[in-house]
């Protein structure tokens, strides 16, 4: 299960990088949630940048082609997965993640730094995400992004 979960994290990065959104959604259970959050030293509390259930994720991905989006592509590098808890049916894991953006001129820069905090369960024998919180250190994202991290 732990190895399956690590592979799931790596696959989630690859599928989002390649904008295979249907397959990416397939890594989540229909009851799952996805969020991007950060601690704001300006407000001295957490702020939420995105908080979606599965149906809302579907809407977001379905509408993407109609938006004017940041040109270029993203590369997500997730590494150093740590198992926080494992009760035999559900894993809580944390993985450091860096997201690089490469523009159309070929220049790359770090777009975001943070951690995936995932809850993973086995569904029909396959590891699936039941919750992903992207806990970001980054709070300035340039023009921002229509695509989740």
């Amino acid at each position, binding site marked *: 299960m732990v190895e399956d979960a690590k592979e799931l994290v790596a696959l989630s990065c690859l599928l989002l990088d390649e904008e295979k959104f249907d397959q990416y959604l397939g890594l989540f259970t229909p009851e799952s949630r996805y969020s991007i959050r950060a601690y704001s030293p*300006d*407000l001295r509390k957490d*702020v939420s*940048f995105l908080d979606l259930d599965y149906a809302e994720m579907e809407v977001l991905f379905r509408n993407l082609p109609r*938006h004017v989006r940041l040109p270029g592509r993203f590369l997500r590098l997730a590494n150093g997965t740590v198992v926080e808890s494992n009760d035999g049916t559900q894993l809580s894991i944390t993985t450091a993640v860096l997201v690089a953006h490469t523009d159309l001129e070929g220049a790359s820069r770090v777009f975001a730094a943070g951690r995936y905090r995932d809850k993973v369960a086995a569904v029909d024998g396959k590891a699936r995400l039941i919750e992903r919180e992207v806990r970001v250190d980054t*709070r300035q994202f*340039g*023009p921002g992004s229509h695509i*989740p991290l």
Partner: protein
Amino acid sequence: MSRSAVEWKAQPGVNPEDYVSAEIYTDPKLFREELERLKRATWKFACHESEIPNPDDYRTIDHAGVPIIVTRSSDGQVRAFINACSHRSAMVLREPCGNAKQWTCLFHFWTYDNFGSCTQISREEGYEQAGICKAKMGLREVRVGQKYGLIFVNLDESAPSFEEYFGDSFENLAEVLGTQNLEVFHYHKATVKANWKQWHETNMELYHEYLHVVNRQVAMTGDGFFDRQWKTYPYGHATLTPMVQKFDRVKGWKARNEKPLPGLGPNEFRIVTFFPDTTIIVRATAMRIDTSTPIAPGLTLVEQRGVGIKGESPGDRTMRIKHHNQFWGPFGRNLPEDAIAVEAVYETLRAGAAPYGLFARHEGNRGQDDHPVRTFYQEWSRYMGRPASAPSERARA
């Protein structure tokens, strides 16, 4: 038919107030002059009162390159000071916010209270022959104005009063901001590779709503979208007739019928732009306060706040945050599009590829009329003493 170089560079053949020169966005000398003559002479939104709710709370901001402390002093009054030590000018407070009765400069331990008085000079006796003492070494105080929980600062002691400057321009926000206690739940910054005025233009030039697929669905299909009327105020502020929008026109989104912000009907939209760089947009249940700080001619720091009702239930707050983030925030549907659009404009302006921008839409001050932008540039020209269409010319007045 395409145009030759001469035709491309020629004045556009419209009234001077209907276009602006590209130089106003790119010229480094004009940029420095703007900071001095305009930005530091106008009232700047600093923060919301909920960011400094308690005595001794402080918030630090940058206003046109000048670091400023906004504090609720120990007596409960809001005050502001330039965040520079009277000794060697080191920044006294370096955190974005905090709570302290005394502020000690890290460099030589000079200390100030949150009324701006200098309360300690390390080994003060060494300054006796120079006549320097605590009583003469207080921080430089900055003017503060407050309305409906919004805190503004002004570096210019001869600028118009807060009341005169804003006049009636808050009228569309009186109930929204003034009925219940509000608090900031969202804050983020975005660095945009464009001029600060371009960012503010996106809040006034609503012809650009074609850019946003969400607005095409939610707003442009709404009754009376094109018939709304701009109203402008002295000193360059503007507001638009409220309208009802159709949030459920976006597949998967819901109408905003429940729990609108105070004074608003279901699905109601309002916008008020304050000269020179602050805008408040309300979309029924969610509100955004937007302000910008110029860093360089082609670099702007945008700050955005999301605001909710203080003490509301966790469920209501979650709904409000969700509605806020649908449009705004770094992963909202609209904000990246605005940033991408203004950066695309600056790409052509920065090397002089394009000579001017057109604001020549005249539709009886209706929603997509450029009237508020022209009003902005009339005010800009007044502060700068030169027309925005030909900034190399000094005003003839």
